[in-house]
């Protein structure tokens, strides 16, 4: 097993656990810097991080704020939401410079952040301080002590495979990328995408480790309890010009789990008005399907919640059945559905690219076809 020095940085317990256990598929030398208190540090330790450095939160809004020259009244709402409210008034991102220095001192060869907005921002800032780029990895292996990653490029039409040359590489990874399982039916070259969408998240049966000669060894290593690493409390200084969080509100998100849906119906520009989406609702309720949409429907029209947007910068789904209604089939959308088992498309333009990527298609007006289809399914 490689002894390549990896550090993961996490500010949530789930991410800490996933990043540490996943990174252990790449190397036995995995360590963590955690923000957000004991729970996050313990999660990293329990998964087998050798050293866990738990960053003490700056948890007194009054001092914190006066240090930044802001009236204390402005932060009265800070810290009222979320389990780790001590963190809310000072962003973990605000420690990026000190964090980069710490990673340098500890000689981290590869630093891994989660691909959340916070993780990506920290990764980018830390990378700049280390004199390198931050990359988002859809899959990663380590060959001859050099990380090799894949990323989606050109709006999803291609996968770039890159070797990270920096002696202190920085990446972000989405949920399930580390320790992802390669579905048996997939060809190896399809791994870049499938790695981003694991069938299951058992770290043992790893797509990553299958690429490594030490696969068997890594399984052994993981099967033993490893919560023997140490947790150290550390202080990290705050960047100059740190941003001040005034308020944190829970995001009004629609709780929809498109990624888990067996059937998904996507609506696109073919719908002329919001009321007309009822045609799609009716079909969805007949088929017990989740509704989703292309980017213009959420961003330009605001007809549907962003959580329902499928595409390269939205959700990627993998249902048994995907039905595209009035969707032209541009690559940025299709990359989000092309792992569906069956694709049905209805579009009045017979030349729409969606038909080239569909199993079944009806060339026709959704306003005529949908009522017929919905009632035929009764």
């Amino acid at each position: 097993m490689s002894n390549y020095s990896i550090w993961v940085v996490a500010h949530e317990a789930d991410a800490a656990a996933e990043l540490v256990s996943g990174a252990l598929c790449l190397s036995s030398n995995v360590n963590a810097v955690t923000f957000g208190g004991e729970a996050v540090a313990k999660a990293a330790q329990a998964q087998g991080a050798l050293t866990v450095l738990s960053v003490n939160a700056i948890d007194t809004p009054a001092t914190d704020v006066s240090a930044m020259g802001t009236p204390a009244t402005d932060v009265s709402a800070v810290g009222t939401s979320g389990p780790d409210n001590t963190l809310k008034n000072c962003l973990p991102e605000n420690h990026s410079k000190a964090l980069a220095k710490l990673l340098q001192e500890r000689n981290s060869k590869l630093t891994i952040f989660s691909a959340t907005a916070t993780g990506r921002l920290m990764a980018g800032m830390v990378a700049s301080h280390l004199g390198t780029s931050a990359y988002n990895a859809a899959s990663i292996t380590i060959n001859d002590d050099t990380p090799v990653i894949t990323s989606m490029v050109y709006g999803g039409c291609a996968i770039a495979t890159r070797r990270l040359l920096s002696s202190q590489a920085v990446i972000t990874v989405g949920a399930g990328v580390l320790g992802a399982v390669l579905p048996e039916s997939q060809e190896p070259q399809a791994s870049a995408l499938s790695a981003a969408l694991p069938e299951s998240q058992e770290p043992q049966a790893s797509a990553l480790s299958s690429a490594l000669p030490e696969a068997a060894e890594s399984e052994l290593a993981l099967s033993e309890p490893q919560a023997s690493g140490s947790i150290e409390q550390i202080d990290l200084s705050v960047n100059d010009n740190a941003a001040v969080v005034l308020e944190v509100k829970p995001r009004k998100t629609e709780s929809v789990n498109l990624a888990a849906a067996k059937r998904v119906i996507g609506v696109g520009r073919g719908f002329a008005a919001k009321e007309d989406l009822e045609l799609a609702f009716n079909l969805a309720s007949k088929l017990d399907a989740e509704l989703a949409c292309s980017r213009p429907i959420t961003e330009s029209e605001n007809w549907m919640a962003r959580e329902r947007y499928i595409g390269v910068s939205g959700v990627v789904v993998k249902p048994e059945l995907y039905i595209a209604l009035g969707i032209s089939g541009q690559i940025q959308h299709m990359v989000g559905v092309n792992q569906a088992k069956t694709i049905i498309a209805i579009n009045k333009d017979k030349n729409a690219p969606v038909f080239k990527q569909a199993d079944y298609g009806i060339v026709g007006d959704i306003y005529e076809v949908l009522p017929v289809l919905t009632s035929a399914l009764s």
Partner: protein
Amino acid sequence: MKIIACCKAAPEEQDIVVRDDGSLDFSRADYKFGSYDLNAIEAARVLADQVGGEVIGLSVGSSELANSKLRKDALSRGLDELVVVTRSSVGEDANDSVSDLSMSDLSVSNLDSYQTAKLLADALEQMGDYDLVLCGAGSSDFYAQQVGNQLGALLGITSLSAINSIKPDVESDAEISEAATNIDSVIVQRLLEQEVQCVRVKLPAVLSVTSGINVPRIAGMKDILAAGKKPVKELVALGTPETSTQTISVKAPPAASRKQEIIQGDANESVARLLELASSVLR
């Protein structure tokens, strides 16, 4: 208020052709500014119109930036001026058609996010004072979503991403006209996965906006005509740091094979035929 909107020209992905071996053919793909960059330009214009000030577009690239149509396109969307930074000098009258760029030219322009951020930081230094730098959610080619984040850190100023709204930090609208060029902080909303943060950001700062922050304007004939008269400044990059990666391959993922049974005709007949063909998945 002086606002810089960063933008990157990249091959139009709809026109990139995937060859049978999975390699990409860029010969029909013209360069254009990414759609996410238009959100940054629009946000800059809206803020400048609100508080008074100017919006300067800033782009790092290669010979594609010599294209006057490309320049006018950016200028017609709300910029007052465009600054292009190239790694070698490009003349006004240089090759107007960039569609015949060869792959070797492309690789020259394939800067990673640290290199791009460094060239932008150097350019900003040459350009003098600024109040705010806006970036889009990501470039339309590599979509690493990191240039803004990395740029702020290089400049030693606040860097924030996922910005879904930007407002001048003033008590009342009346104060805006008074403050005019003197706004020293903004209040932004950050759209995170589970929460919305309201953050006070001291200027200057680098903010990367979401693709949902606004709907970029579509340039009208007047804007397009005016764009031709707006200034374009050219800067030559002082020096580029070494690349942090070696690209091994850029290939299309293998396409899933689809049955492509396409039905045409009357709605009733089409639906009947679909139910025959796809009964197993629809029941």
